[in-house]
């Protein structure tokens, strides 16, 4: 796998200064976020040194530029990591929720990097922070149908292009949380008699919390004239309260107990939602060390966050053959996605 970021990281206190935020309530949201720094591409200061909100057109252009730049880099880092080249790529699934463009990211990245134009592709757009696992599910299906062929899930999120700067608490919660980053993971199904290293995907479980369909939204704000993200303050608790339902479904029929799971890779959604998942699934702080570490160093990277945690787990070198792991993401819908893997 591989990751990439763009721009220079900025700390929460630096960001408060840059944005000129003085409201103590808003400042406390930033400072109690359990985030140290994030990669962001902010609007350039105007003649008065102020960062003016960008119009939607500029945000879309920023999304396209950053998502392609970071995505291309993450894809190349991923291929290098697995000892493959661009010419080996047979399927590219791009995931983004922080901007909309047609032709989509997969087409633009194939053209920009000179990937074989016969490469199969798909774009998953607008599904939010959970979408990395939705994409993994789809590409795992493609991979099973094409043994021995290389597929990649590429999550590339320019959260800087999804910002609305209006001084309200609604946007403060969002602006204090998200950062820019891209992550790619390579999948390949074994052909006959050619087992490969790395974890195998065993099973997926999905759950749509239909009564909370409006609790996380990225929709048009007529007053601001742009898209704006909304997070219901109750959402961490809603996710926590439903987490057991999904893990029980994931493990049903596998003969596994929750205590058999050695590695947990949970989406770095925010401090509150991590706390709620930890409590409701009976996890330890050690279980979510990478989730918390990615949040601290990058903020919420939306769909690619769990892959940043996966990269850190791989770098730790603590996984043993036979170990089980659970990947967990949550996002708009409201939805919880899980995958069971075995090393």
């Amino acid at each position, binding site marked *: 796998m591989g990751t990439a970021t763009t721009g220079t990281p900025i700390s929460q206190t630096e960001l408060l200064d840059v944005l000129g935020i003085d409201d103590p309530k808003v400042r406390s949201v930033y400072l*109690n976020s*359990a985030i140290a720094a994030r990669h962001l591409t902010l609007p350039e200061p105007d003649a008065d040194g102020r960062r003016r909100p960008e119009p939607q057109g500029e945000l879309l252009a920023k999304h396209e530029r950053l998502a392609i730049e970071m995505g291309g880099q993450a894809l190349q880092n991923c291929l290098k990591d697995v000892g493959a080249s661009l010419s080996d790529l047979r399927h590219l699934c791009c995931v983004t929720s922080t901007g909309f463009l047609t032709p989509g990211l997969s087409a633009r990245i194939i053209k920009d990097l000179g990937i074989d134009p016969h490469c199969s592709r798909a774009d998953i757009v607008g599904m939010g922070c959970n979408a990395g696992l939705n994409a993994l599910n789809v590409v795992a299906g493609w991979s099973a149908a094409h043994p021995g062929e290389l597929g990649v899930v590429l999550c590339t999120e320019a959260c800087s292009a999804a910002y609305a700067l209006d001084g309200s608490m609604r946007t403060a919660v969002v602006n204090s949380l998200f950062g820019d980053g891209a992550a790619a993971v390579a999948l390949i199904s074994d052909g006959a008699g050619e087992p490969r290293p790395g974890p195998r995907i065993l099973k997926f479980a999905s759950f749509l919390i239909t009564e909370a369909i409006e609790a996380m939204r990225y929709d048009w704000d007529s007053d601001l004239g742009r898209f704006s993200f909304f997070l219901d303050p109750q959402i*961490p*608790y809603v996710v*926590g*309260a439903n987490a057991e339902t999904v893990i029980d479904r994931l493990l049903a029929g596998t003969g596994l*107990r929750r*205590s058999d799971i050695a590695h947990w890779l949970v989406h770095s959604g925010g*401090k*509150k939602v*991590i*706390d*709620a998942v*930890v*409590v*409701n699934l*009976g996890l*330890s*702080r050690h279980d979510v060390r990478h989730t918390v570490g990615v949040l601290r160093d990058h903020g919420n990277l939306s769909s690619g966050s769990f892959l940043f945690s996966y990269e850190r787990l791989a770098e730790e070198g603590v996984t043993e053959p036979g170990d089980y792991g659970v990947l967990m993401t949550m996002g708009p819908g409201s939805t919880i996605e899980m995958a069971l893997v075995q090393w």
Partner: protein
Amino acid sequence: MVTAAGVDDLVLRVDGSRPPSAAEVEAVQRLCDRAEDDFGAGVLVVYASGAPLPGWTRTLDVGLVTKWERTVRRLERLGLTTVAVAAGDCGGIALDVLLAADVRIAAAGARLVVPVGGDATWPGMALYRLARQGGARGLRRAALLGTPIEAEAAASAGLIDVVTEEPGGALAEVAAAAAAMPGSEVAIRRQLMLEAGQQSFDEALGAHLAACDRTLRRAAAS
């Protein structure tokens, strides 16, 4: 309907005179499996007694120690109330499980023994638990030199909950209280308590509020 484990349902006898072994690991793991599969409340009872003899580390390697420590950790995080009953000298693997239990009952005359392994005291995770739970008050001689901790001193240091001539009575009391508490919820309280010593108020607040929310939802659903 939650099935509560009584004092005779889930019983582990740990002989501290034996070194950690694959068989001990297996025995504890199987009991934890049974606890998780069959019971939603109640107690798992560990009878802990015996202290290692000289040379007890000869059969050990760090791989086996790793498995044993992981197994004790599983016991420490179990979704049931765990009760240890200590008698006589209690060291080695008996001390390991004692210090991982929720409630510790010592028969009068019991002593906690940090064993000497090789040329100094054994530095396994019992040493960590001693330092965390006993605050190291008066325990340095035990930790560093292997001087036994008498039951009363262990109680003063917070390592033992009760010293009694009648462990059976104390055990029955704990079992009666634990039968009414869902094990999953006990495990969450225990985890919050374990983490409290390591986190600031503000760091801990989110997890406690999530646990409060969980409790309110359970009450509303019942």
